């Protein structure tokens, strides 16, 4: 399955704004997404925004990136202003169905 365009854009922004190379930027965001229960194929802009603000700064700090919070906030703001077409992921679809079971 192809990576989400949100993931691709976040990775390229992180690569441009920090000293991380492409592989390291993608790997770091992958780790952050995994710890948030998300995957690179289905992440949308809103989810990535939360990960950028709440998870990624700590990951970048451990890699010696200075001012990680500001970098992440800037990328999150950029992504929030853009539109992407991302299909709902499998977990979110299943959650929506099971949420219905409680209604």
């Amino acid at each position, binding site marked *: 399955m192809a990576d989400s365009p949100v993931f691709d854009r976040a990775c390229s922004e992180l690569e441009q704004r920090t000293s991380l190379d492409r592989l390291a930027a993608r790997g770091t965001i992958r780790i952050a997404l995994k*710890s*948030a*229960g*998300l995957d690179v194929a289905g992440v949308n802009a809103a*989810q990535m925004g*939360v*990960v950028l603000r*709440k*998870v990624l700064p700590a990951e970048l700090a451990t890699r010696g990136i200075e001012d990680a919070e500001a970098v992440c906030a800037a990328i999150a703001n950029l992504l929030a202003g853009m539109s992407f077409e991302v299909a709902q992921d*499998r*977990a979110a*679809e*299943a*959650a929506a*169905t*099971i*949420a*219905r*079971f*409680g*209604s």
Partner: protein
Amino acid sequence: MFLLQLIGEAAFIAASLTLGAKLVLLWRRTREVPELAIGLSFLLGGGIAYLAWFALAVGAARGASASLLGPVLLLGLVCTCLGAIANGVGIARIFRPGARWPLPLLGGLALWMAGAAAVGAVSAPERASVAFWAGILAILPIYGWAAGEALVLARTLHRRARLGLADPVVVNRFAQWGVSGVIVVLMTSLSFASRLLHGPLMPPGISALNAGLGVVAAAAIWLGFFPPRALRERLASAYAS
């Protein structure tokens, strides 16, 4: 001991019938496959089948004739198998939408179960018992699969919920559903082991353990699908902090 068994079975049957009815009623509004399939699974496999098992145990303990117990056994087997297949259809639609591999798996198990029920219906008691267990054991991969999917997704959604990306009540529902599936596998395996080791009548210790598992499964169903307000509030505050 009988009272303990009664409590365990009654709790599980009541929870299964209530949830099954709720989901079938939901299906009447939504016309979506998952609620119909999972609703039928609880109604048939959890409710009616366990009513049949309970009637069978009472009848056997009181020395009822084979001609009386035979149809009850067949009813329990058919409901258990239909419930498991319905569960498999629901699980496939919920967790693996668009995937083709569940179809041959469920089709093969359904054929196996139908064969076991047919052999059981026309065979002498000893051979019918083998056919019966061949049918019953075929539900294990389905309930094991269901429990695995629910627990894995509960873990994924738990991570999301910590960041406010999933509803804690739904996370709890997946977890409790997974627990109830694990318990169905345990109860079935325990009954089979008891049959192999001790014959048709379950020893009191195993019966008590099965009854206890029934209570836990009923509690899991209830807490997952009918969570009281106090639990919902506790979940919300736990994830918010």
